[in-house]
């Protein structure tokens, strides 16, 4: 008996230490549909898919998954693959030094008499490639393929495993227009072969173009799910669902008193360190006043972090041109050390891999960016170190009995406070905060917001990069939006709302014209 | 709390034990030292002024230390066993250790022997020049030091050396090569190559010198042609006596100089290297050259018997070990060092050297020479 629903996920709850990533999520997917899942960054979409595909094994989450009419409990990806569920990740997972054939059959080799039967594998590969519309030599190394082609090979790999349910996690985020169109066509083809697709995407135009149903997830909950009438998606409804939470009382009251412009970046250009000729920052201009909180909005990969890190002592990419003025004076910051000396501080987006040395204690972390301040003579003074660390432990309300605690034992919120303390200890004029509240629970978020306000009140210029639009709207005085490396808009907070922001961030027509401008 | 108690108990026991034992240990050693000191303190003073010659002897069941460089070749393995059995047969206690060809390890072994209160240390050095301070320490502790098979250089802490005359050995090797060439390869001139031993072993240059004293006149008059032109010891030396390095050098000599020539003979400083040379020659498609050797290792004895290796030189390990034990017995009885065959300056002092004659072994005389060595005689079948 064919069940009309291929997949039913009910009451899925997944808790990470300190964070409830999924909270009672429900997802129903009809057989043969293309089902879109949308939501803000960090809303829990990818987590949900990881639960489905067995990356998080059965038992580490609560809830029930019914697939093809029966309840399933995958222990690992291998099992979900066997059941016909394949996931195409945002980051491609193929091995660049191996050929297409080798990649497609990696871990699933065609074996005859104990040896790999490469001839058969090659023939099968050619067939699979045809199915995804590729006519290239299966012996080609992956590294010689474009991103779009690699994506198609990934799908071919999934097809080789006789996939029934294909999950694509932001499949077009790295693709150009032509490749994206190509991919969408392929998804329609797959639909004809009775393969169900779940597509995670923020691109509303794509969702409108191909999906049969949409589920919106926000803050780990399903907030809306409905069918799409052929080719017509109510974009407003999706946007409202994606961002529509009440923002009252989430952000502390604050009136800012912006002063002079103390930080000014003009004509900033940076080249991608990996891909020669690709600009990750295109002639960016912006400024920040003393005591002002300026937000930076943009989709993932738009180039916000890249911009900030390149300004912060050329820590990222290859500097091509542009100037930075601090308090009206042009400064050159060729290294992070010089940036710190000029009064800049940067709290990185990825706390664990960039912000902290996880094997360190709170005490050593807090002073680590300004060791000069705890020197006495030519030696570091442990007493001064203790005093400094203890001061921030109190003033930032870091919840730990003493400063010798290892930072790895702290919760995300407290870790972030340690990072903030570390940068406050350098006594900066300009603070760049890159996603300062990511992965932090609501209570700690509120404390960090208060800290940001306090910093602004001390006359510091604060740059707040965030993917959470309400946060930007609630905190910033002014917001710049970035699209594909260019600053695509500037809004005063009073005139901005989430819908407006989302449009500037995603509206391809604006973006295209920007891109053209940048290329001229 | 239980844990606290356990821990404090543990710590306390440890501390008490440490103090107690060290107390005992310390006093213990000083006591033993006192009793021994009767014999040793006086010696120490005499040793420091003159050469170290314990004159009062020591207990007949005293411990004797033997430090060998390694057990990687047959002669050292034999020495290891013979020292153990023969020292014990003579009523001594024996500590026989090998140093894996590492100088620091040998230094530490000698120190631990001193620690163990040995009366005599027999040293087959890894590097005869690098034991200076530990041997002087031994001398200062009243221990007699006997060099075994190799000279102990650059130190005052040595009382005598037992070895086969190394220059003599070299002469024999050179002569055997000449004889073999005349016998096996017909009329000259002969194409030959030269190999030396490990440069860190003070014997190696002497072997080479001895051999060259025989070969050089023949090279000068054109009977022998060293095709590669490599006749300097440093060019011919085989680091660490390593067979594989010798084989690699032979391979490159053969491919570099003998693609259109025949090689007639090779001077080899020992058996392992000789076999490496023969193997390399066979692999290069050459007729087996006349190759000399040393040590009469089992495999080479067989090869000599079957005609693959022309000759080897036997330095009968038992003779060397017996001579060493003879000296130890003389020291034990309080008769001091026997009169040496010759004196050699080791850089710091003149050392008495007891030289034993080596013997050339060829297919013709093998049965005769090994008549008293059932193990090797067995191989001649």
């Amino acid at each position, binding site marked *: 008996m064919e069940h009309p629903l291929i997949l039913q996920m009910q009451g899925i709850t997944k808790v990470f230490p300190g964070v409830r990533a999924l909270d009672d999520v429900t997802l129903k997917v009809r057989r043969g549909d293309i089902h879109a899942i949308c939501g803000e960054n960090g809303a829990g979409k990818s987590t949900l898919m990881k639960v489905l595909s067995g990356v998080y094994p059965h038992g580490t989450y609560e809830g029930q998954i019914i697939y093809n009419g029966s309840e399933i409990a995958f222990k690992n990806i291998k099992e979900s693959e066997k059941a016909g569920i394949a996931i195409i990740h945002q980051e491609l997972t193929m091995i660049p030094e191996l050929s297409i054939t080798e990649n497609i059959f990696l871990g699933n080799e065609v074996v005859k008499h104990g040896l790999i039967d490469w001839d058969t594998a090659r023939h099968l590969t050619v067939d699979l490639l045809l199915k995804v519309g590729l006519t290239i030599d299966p012996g080609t190394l992956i590294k010689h393929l474009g991103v779009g082609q690699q994506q198609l090979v990934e799908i071919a790999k999934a097809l080789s495993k006789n996939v029934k349910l294909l999950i694509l996690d932001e499949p077009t985020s790295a693709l150009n227009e032509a490749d994206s169109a190509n991919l969408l066509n392929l998804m329609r083809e797959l639909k004809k072969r009775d393969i169900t697709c779940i597509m995670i995407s923020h691109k509303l135009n794509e969702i409108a173009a191909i999906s049969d149903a949409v589920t919106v997830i926000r803050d780990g909950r399903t907030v809306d799910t409905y069918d799409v009438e052929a080719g017509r998606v109510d974009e407003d409804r999706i946007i409202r669902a994606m961002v529509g939470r009440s923002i009252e009382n989430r952000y502390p009251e604050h009136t800012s008193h912006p002063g002079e412009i103390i930080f000014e970046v003009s004509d900033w250009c940076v080249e991608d360190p990996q891909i020669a000729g690709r600009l990750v920052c295109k002639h960016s201009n912006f400024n920040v006043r003393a005591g002002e909180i300026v937000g930076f909005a943009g989709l993932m990969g738009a180039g916000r972090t890249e911009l900030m890190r390149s300004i912060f002592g050329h820590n990222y990419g290859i500097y091509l041109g542009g100037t930075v003025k601090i308090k009206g004076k042009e400064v050159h910051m060729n290294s992070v050390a010089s940036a710190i000396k000029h009064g800049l501080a940067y709290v990185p987006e990825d706390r664990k*891999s*960039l912000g902290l040395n996880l*094997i360190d204690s709170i005490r050593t972390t807090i002073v680590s960016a300004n*060791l000069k301040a705890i020197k006495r003579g030519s*030696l570091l003074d442990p007493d001064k170190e203790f005093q400094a660390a203890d001061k921030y432990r109190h003033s930032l309300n870091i919840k730990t009995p003493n400063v010798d605690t290892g930072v790895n034992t702290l919760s995300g919120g407290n870790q972030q406070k340690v990072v903030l303390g570390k940068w406050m200890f350098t006594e900066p004029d300009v603070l760049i905060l890159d996603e300062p509240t990511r992965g932090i629970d609501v209570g700690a978020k509120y404390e960090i917001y208060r800290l940001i306000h306090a910093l602004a009140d001390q006359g510091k210029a604060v740059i707040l990069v965030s993917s959470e639009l309400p946060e930007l709207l609630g905190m910033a005085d002014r917001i710049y939006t970035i699209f594909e490396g260019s600053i695509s808009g500037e809004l005063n907070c009073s005139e901005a709302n989430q819908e407006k922001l989302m449009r500037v961030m995603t509206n391809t027509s604006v973006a295209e014209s920007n891109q053209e401008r940048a290329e001229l | 709390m239980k844990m606290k108690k356990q821990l404090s108990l543990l710590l306390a026991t440890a501390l008490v034990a440490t103090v107690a034992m060290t107390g005992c240990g310390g006093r213990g050693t000083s006591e033993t030292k006192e009793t021994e000191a009767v014999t040793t303190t006086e010696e120490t003073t005499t040793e420091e002024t003159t050469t170290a010659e314990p004159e009062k002897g020591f207990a007949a069941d005293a411990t004797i230390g033997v430090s060998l460089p390694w057990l990687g070749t047959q002669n050292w393995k034999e020495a290891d066993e013979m020292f153990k059995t023969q020292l014990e047969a003579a009523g001594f206690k024996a500590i026989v250790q090998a140093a894996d060809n590492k100088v620091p390890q040998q230094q530490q072994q000698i120190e631990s022997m001193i620690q163990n209160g040995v009366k005599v240390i027999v040293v087959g050095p890894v590097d005869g*020049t690098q034991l*200076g301070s530990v041997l002087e320490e031994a001398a200062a502790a009243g221990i007699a030091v006997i060099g075994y098979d190799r000279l102990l*250089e650059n130190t005052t802490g040595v009382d005598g050396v037992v070895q086969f005359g190394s220059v003599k050995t070299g002469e024999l090797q050179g002569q055997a090569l000449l004889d073999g060439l005349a016998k096996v390869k017909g009329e000259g001139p002969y194409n030959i190559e030269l190999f030396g031993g490990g440069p*860190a072993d003070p014997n190696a240059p002497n072997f080479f010198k001895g051999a060259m004293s025989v070969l050089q006149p023949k090279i000068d008059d054109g009977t022998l042609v060293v095709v590669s032109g490599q006749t300097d010891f440093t060019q011919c030396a085989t680091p660490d006596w390593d067979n594989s390095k010798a084989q690699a050098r032979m391979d490159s000599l053969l491919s570099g100089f003998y693609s259109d020539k025949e090689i007639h003979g090779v001077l080899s400083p020992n058996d392992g290297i000789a076999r490496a040379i023969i193997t390399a020659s066979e692999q290069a498609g050459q007729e087996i050259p006349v190759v000399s050797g040393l040590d009469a290792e089992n495999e080479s004895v067989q090869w000599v018997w079957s005609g693959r290796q022309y000759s080897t030189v036997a330095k009968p390990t038992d003779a060397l070990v017996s001579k060493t034990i003879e000296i130890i017995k003389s020291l034990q009885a309080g008769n001091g060092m026997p009169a040496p065959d010759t004196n050699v300056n080791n850089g710091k002092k003149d050392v008495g050297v007891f030289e034993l004659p080596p013997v050339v072994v060829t297919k013709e005389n093998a049965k005769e020479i090994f008549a008293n060595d059932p193990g090797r005689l067995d191989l001649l079948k």
Partner: protein
Amino acid sequence: MKYIKQVLGGELRQYTMVIALAALIIIFNITSGGRMITPSNFQNLLSGNAYVLVLAIGMLMVIVIGQIDLAVGSVAGFSGMVMALVARDLGFPWWLAVIVSLTIGLLAGAWQGFWVAKLGIPGFITTLGGMMIFRGGVIWISKSISVPAPTELKWFGAGYLPEWGPVFTGMNNSTLLLGIIAIAAYVYGQLRRRKRTAKLTGTTEPFWPVIARIILVGGIIAFFTWIFGTGRPGTSFPVPGLILVILVIIYHIITERTQFGRHIYAVGGNKSAAALSGVNVQKTYFFTMLNMSFLAALAGIMFVGRSTAAGPSDGTGWELDAIASVFIGGAAVSGGIGTVLNTMVGGMVMAVLNSGLMLMGVGADRTQVIKGLVLLAAVAFDVYNKAHGRRSIIGAIFPEKESKQSEGKPADSREK
């Protein structure tokens, strides 16, 4: 438990290896019939292992930054050989030869540092190359023959401190003086720390743990003073040991109390985070590699002094001994963790094992096997600890839960 913690301070885990070391010494003293704990054996332990421990100091820093240096043995051999050669063939006085040798070490370090820091070649590869280059260099310049070293150097490698002053002390007075200085320094340090902690935190530590610490540590120092000072007349705390102690103090301060030291740990713990905190990662790599080769040269000099001659195969395998010491001392393979003091304890564990097994007459073959097993066990213990929330060995032997259950039954506890 609480009281002991108060005396020793902080985590007990850091004392695991010290306790293991003490246990080893005691066990060997019993099995070797009292030959382990004697003045001359302790002097030998230091003289015979000082050069490896000097290497281990540098190796610790290299491992903390997440690199490895395989060339230290070769660099040590090369610098030692250069020293012997310039003294013999060019007639340099011994002190100038030493300076030349140390300069060679610095140049070798700059060479390695250049490849690692500027060109980003992994340390493993760079120093594998260096190992071959400098080993070849030794054999080349020495023509593979040992070269006698200036006799003055023997003092550095196997010398003793002078004898002076009154005889009634019954021991070497230089050693006695060192011991008194050490105890005085410790007492002063403890009292000062107590005062400053009181000032900082406002809570005054009671006097008794301080006294207990002083008695414990002072007793240990006094014991060692006695052991080293009462050897054969003319012997004392050995000079190479003194060099080592001075280096340990210097490098302990460098790693714990200087900006450079902090940078080493920061780079090793998280290179990207360190870079974003203003640490010059390249510079840190460069100077760590430079320092390693400098210490290698120093180790080479000490060894040549002890051996009285420089040999072509000096230094072979030393890098592995140094690396083993560092890991037994609890450093992390992934970098960022490890201290100079623990490394010294790790090195001494190896040294005591070596010495004890030799005293027992165990052959080199089985000694190697045992050392290999100890290395594995020590690192496995560390890894296990990390995976299970850093329980100390004491915690592992006497689990907390159990001790709570059987509270009030001290009889049981003695049996364990």
